[in-house]
């Protein structure tokens, strides 16, 4: 089938199978920054923001995401102009293999938009669907705290 997808502010007309997931369609159309870690809705590596909400793109039928606002990590900052959350992850040492990083950054963005000064408990809860096997989460949590401090001091 054919459909229109609004990804990172750009509208795209894509052809896809009716049983394709949003992850399938994003990866097939130039968004490899969305990672396939388990395809079963657990690891969270494929997380994107759909209408501003964090979702596992492997658990979303592409058909049901047509015409909706989709944000991937490439849409929030670039290597030349990174977003403060991206630099916070880098500076905190929260990036090891990096496979979970784009998703964890989007989880952070979803959290901080709603709650600019989260408690540790709220941070842990907001990232509860984003596995990381490298960091033990310690520096990811630190990165979220750092991003929160920086972003709220700019307000």
């Amino acid at each position, binding site marked *: *089938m054919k459909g229109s997808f609004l990804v990172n502010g750009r509208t795209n007309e894509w052809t896809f*199978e*009716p*049983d394709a*997931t949003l992850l399938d369609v994003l990866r097939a159309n130039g968004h490899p920054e969305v990672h396939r870690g388990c395809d*079963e*809705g*657990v690891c*969270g590596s494929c*997380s994107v923001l*759909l209408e501003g*909400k*964090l*979702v*596992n793109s*492997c*658990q*979303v*039928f592409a*058909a*049901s995401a047509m015409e909706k606002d989709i944000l991937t990590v490439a849409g929030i900052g670039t290597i030349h102009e990174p977003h403060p959350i991206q630099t916070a992850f880098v500076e905190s040492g929260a990036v090891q293999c990096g496979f979970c990083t784009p998703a964890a950054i989007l*989880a952070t963005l*979803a959290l901080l938009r709603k709650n600019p000064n989260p408690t540790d408990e709220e941070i842990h*809860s*907001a*990232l*509860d*669907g*984003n596995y990381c096997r490298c960091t033990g989460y310690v520096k990811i949590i630190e990165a979220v705290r750092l991003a929160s401090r920086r972003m709220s001091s700019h307000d």
Partner: protein
Amino acid sequence: MSTVQWYFPDTLDEAISYLGREKTVPHGGGTSLIKSGIASLEGLVDLSRLGLDSLKMEKGILEAGAGMTFGGVAESLANLHPECILGKALGASASTPMRNRITLGGSASLFPLWSDLIGPMSVLHGVICTEGKNGGTYDLPSWLADRTLQKGSLITSLLFPDPVDWLSSYYRETRVGFDYPAFTVSILARKNNSTIDKVRIAVSGGLDRVRRLTELEERLTGADLSVLASLDIRKMASVEFGRKPAGSPEYLSEIAAVQVERGLKAVLTEEGKSR
């Protein structure tokens, strides 16, 4: 190659007309159809344009649209009625990204063994409202007893007639924080000084899917709080389980009873609360 046809109705009537077709099922946005696969289906009806995603409280009755996500319900209730067991349960379910997709309607159409909705439905005496071929309102036991009710029908909302002003406790038995529960324990109570006015206890995940501990409820209702010390709650809270990755049937049965006892004490006594 999948040949399934997607429909995007704008009205309930339109949606229901599609649902009358062969091998055509509703899709509210949740994850169960992705897991089970849609190879055998011919049609999928997307419900996102039907406006079933509102939550309102009128005359003490909570009505939650079938399109509400677990995350949406939990967030709304956390602000409005933080003690409401429904918000506690759905807010603890699965993970943040999963809660943003799992819907009340999708969950109620399946009530899987690991449901975090079924316990609160049971103790809150929740009602399932449907439109279409078998349109009507159904309480949980009659809904669970007859799966054919869903054919040609659409769950539109869940009603909770008396959802707030309870002392409540919700426990989910999991191996790690993000896990489906091996069982859940839902407890509601009201007390008047040291007398237990009302108490409702449900354990899900056992062989009965969800079981109200009616015998225990009867013994506690109207009794003085001191009954908690004299009664063998664990014995009365015994529920049968099958084998699960979290443990043997005997083990699950034993610790479910422990959690019932703890939940009751937490809800009804200060000492239990402090833990």
